[in-house]
């Protein structure tokens, strides 16, 4: 009887191996062998059969030491590498054909493998990355502190009425309520603040250089419970999110929202996890609901970690202003305002918030714009006599007479500014910077200083750069300046900047567009903004109007649209233009600048 069964098993395995070998996608498996080795192929135990890594490891790990388990997408088998051949033989003898995995009707078959391509083992496991900005402090609190905190949170849990039993865990909130459905905070404060007993712990955070949190979420997990992958909404909380683990180790999963890259990190009990920057804004985190985790422990290899009752304390600081992180695709503060105006809206906003404004403020603007910026001037002076310079968006024409050995032509949308230029005997043309009315391949030098940041869409800004490339002669160079969102490099603030607190107000720039108003001399909070220009009417006619109060306090305010550029954005835009290369790029007094060369 035993012999018959063995024959049947052998037949099944032979048939299976033959089928695998027909699969052209498998060339790393090596060959099936009847003589023992450290590597076993487990037939009927793959992702395709609905098993997880943990379920398969759970068969072996309690009895034999395993070095590695490779599971392949869409396959009905997997490969286990044991630490010793002995373990493989024992498993083979014990399990082959006589063991069924949970809920599986087909028995598990095993077969030794020879000449496995080592790539099979290296490909999967080495891709792990540590999310940028993620910090894990082991033994952040002592055993005694842990005990105190556990007691405190469990007592609170019994008393408090706002404890909610979610499908997968029990949650309590302090300070503000974190709404797990949408991962946002309810900005209406709760009656219960963070318990005073937490003060020792909070002081530890402060010592660690973290900001004082004002919101706490306590999660109680029993083995088998978890929390789905999520990113705490950017607009709800500040950068640092702190999580202290009590009662049990746990494996937390992290997923990069951009790349889909996945990494699992063991959070030991009494550790403190600090999510900042990329790990806080760009990555999701969560806990898979299961009763045990498999971890790759140092010196031990893969082992099973049984989950115990775990309590996590998550501390956050509720945000009072908009988030201005650089992960705009994932930022609800910014994505709501990512400007994607229709052509009609774009035209209207540029007309009302750029061209008309410059016409209104032209003479005052011109008085404040007399000295050329040194880097622009030296660019102009680098061209030989008889070169043609085109200044796109020339304003009051302060660069048109930098060099008398060049022929300089300026274009602008504001007739009033062009009149200023004409009074200074400059050659100027009223034109749209996206469609300059000049012949192809004609300009040796083009400057476009502080212009394309007035255009409302990326496409319109790009059109301008493409048109600049069109006009340049081969080997000709262009200099582009745009206002930088970053008004501070290192510790050095730009001349523009003067730190002060401010609240954001908004203006309905168009029926379909509400834009934030920038407070002058402060850091930029948004990419697309209205910047006020205060015009003192009294100075235009030299008289203070009758019945007026102090004219200083009653200026007319005009708003100009700006798209302030983030670091790298201008280069990115230039990279979309064919036939030009970036000759150099630099930061100059609060502006991002590139010098382009026509190929």
């Amino acid at each position, binding site marked *: 009887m035993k012999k018959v069964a063995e024959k049947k098993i052998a037949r099944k395995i032979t048939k299976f191996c033959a089928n695998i070998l027909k699969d052209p996608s498998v060339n790393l498996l090596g060959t099936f062998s009847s003589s023992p080795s450290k590597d076993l192929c487990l037939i009927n135990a793959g992702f395709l059969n609905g098993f997880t890594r943990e379920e398969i490891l759970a068969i072996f790990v309690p009895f034999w030491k395993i070095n590695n388990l490779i599971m392949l997408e869409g396959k009905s088998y997997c490969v286990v590498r044991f630490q010793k051949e002995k373990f493989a033989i024992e498993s083979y003898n014990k399990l082959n054909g006589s063991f069924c995995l949970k809920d599986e009707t087909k028995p598990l078959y095993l077969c030794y493998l020879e000449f496995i391509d080592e790539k099979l083992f290296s490909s999967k496991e080495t891709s792990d990355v540590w999310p940028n900005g993620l910090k894990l402090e082991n033994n952040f609190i002592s055993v005694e502190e842990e005990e105190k905190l556990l007691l405190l949170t469990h007592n609170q849990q019994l008393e408090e009425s706002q404890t909610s039993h979610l499908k997968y865990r029990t949650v309590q909130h302090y300070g503000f309520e974190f709404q797990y459905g949408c991962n946002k905070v309810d900005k209406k404060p709760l009656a219960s603040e963070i318990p005073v007993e937490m003060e020792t712990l909070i002081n530890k955070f402060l010592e660690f250089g973290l900001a004082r949190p004002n919101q706490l979420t306590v999660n109680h997990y029993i083995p088998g419970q978890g929390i789905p992958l999520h990113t705490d909404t950017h607009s709800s909380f500040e950068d640092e999110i702190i999580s202290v683990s009590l009662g049990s180790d746990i494996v937390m999963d992290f997923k990069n929202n951009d790349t889909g890259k996945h990494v699992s990190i063991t959070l030991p009990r009494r550790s403190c996890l600090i999510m900042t920057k990329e790990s806080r804004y760009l990555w999701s985190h969560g806990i898979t609901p299961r009763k045990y985790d498999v971890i790759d422990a140092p010196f031990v290899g893969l082992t099973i970690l049984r989950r115990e009752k775990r309590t996590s304390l998550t501390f956050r600081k509720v945000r009072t202003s908009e988030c201005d992180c650089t992960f705009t695709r994932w930022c609800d503060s910014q994505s709501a305002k990512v400007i994607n105006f229709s*052509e009609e809206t774009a*035209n209207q906003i540029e007309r009302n918030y750029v061209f008309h404004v410059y016409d209104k403020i032209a003479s005052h603007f011109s008085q404040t714009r007399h000295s050329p910026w040194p880097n622009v001037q030296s660019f102009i002076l680098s061209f*030989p*006599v*008889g*070169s*043609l310079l085109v200044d796109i968006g020339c304003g009051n024409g302060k660069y048109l007479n930098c060099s008398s*050995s060049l*022929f300089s*032509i300026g*274009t602008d*949308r504001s*007739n009033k500014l*062009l*009149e200023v230029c*004409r009074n200074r*005997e400059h*050659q*100027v*043309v*009223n*034109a*749209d910077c996206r*469609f*300059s*009315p*000049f*012949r192809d391949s*004609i300009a040796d030098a083009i400057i476009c200083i502080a212009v394309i940041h007035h255009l409302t869409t990326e496409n319109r800004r790009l059109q301008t750069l493409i048109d600049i490339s069109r006009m340049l002669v081969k080997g000709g160079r262009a200099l582009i300046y745009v206002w930088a969102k970053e008004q501070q490099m290192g510790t050095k603030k730009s001349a523009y900047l003067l730190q002060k607190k401010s609240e954001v107000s908004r203006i309905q720039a168009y029926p379909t567009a509400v834009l934030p108003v920038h407070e002058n001399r402060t850091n930029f909070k948004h990419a697309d903004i209205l910047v006020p220009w205060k015009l003192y009417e009294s100075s235009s006619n030299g008289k203070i109007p009758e019945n007026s109060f102090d004219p200083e306090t009653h200026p007319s305010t005009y708003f100009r649209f700006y798209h302030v550029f983030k670091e790298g954005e201008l280069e990115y835009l230039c990279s979309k233009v064919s036939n030009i290369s970036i000759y150099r790029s630099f930061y100059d007094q609060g502006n991002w600048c590139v010098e382009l060369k026509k190929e």
Partner: protein
Amino acid sequence: MKLLTHNLLTSKCLKGVTVGYPLAIVAKEVKVNEIDFNPEFISRMIQKVDWAALCKAAENLGHSDELPPNVVDDYENNEEFLKKAHHFLMEIEVMNGDLICPETGRKFPVTDGIPNMLANEDEV
């Protein structure tokens, strides 16, 4: 608007216009300003200038046959030619009038020496 500036202008920004060059000039007011003569500068500019378009512009302003129909050989050393080119390119300015697209007939006004090359939103 100097004729050198005019020599560089096209109405290609209009939808459907392929060359848009040269723009005809209908002048209402023309001014002549004396400008310092720089032979090296003018020689370099002549390399950029579309000479036929300059002749046509001169003709539009009533200066028929004052310019040779082609750039002369060895112009760098021909002071008479360079001075003539200098006068037409640098000293004559159209103050008021219209520029006319050769393909569509669209008029672009010149006001106080400033050509308005802005197209309407439905023209681009």
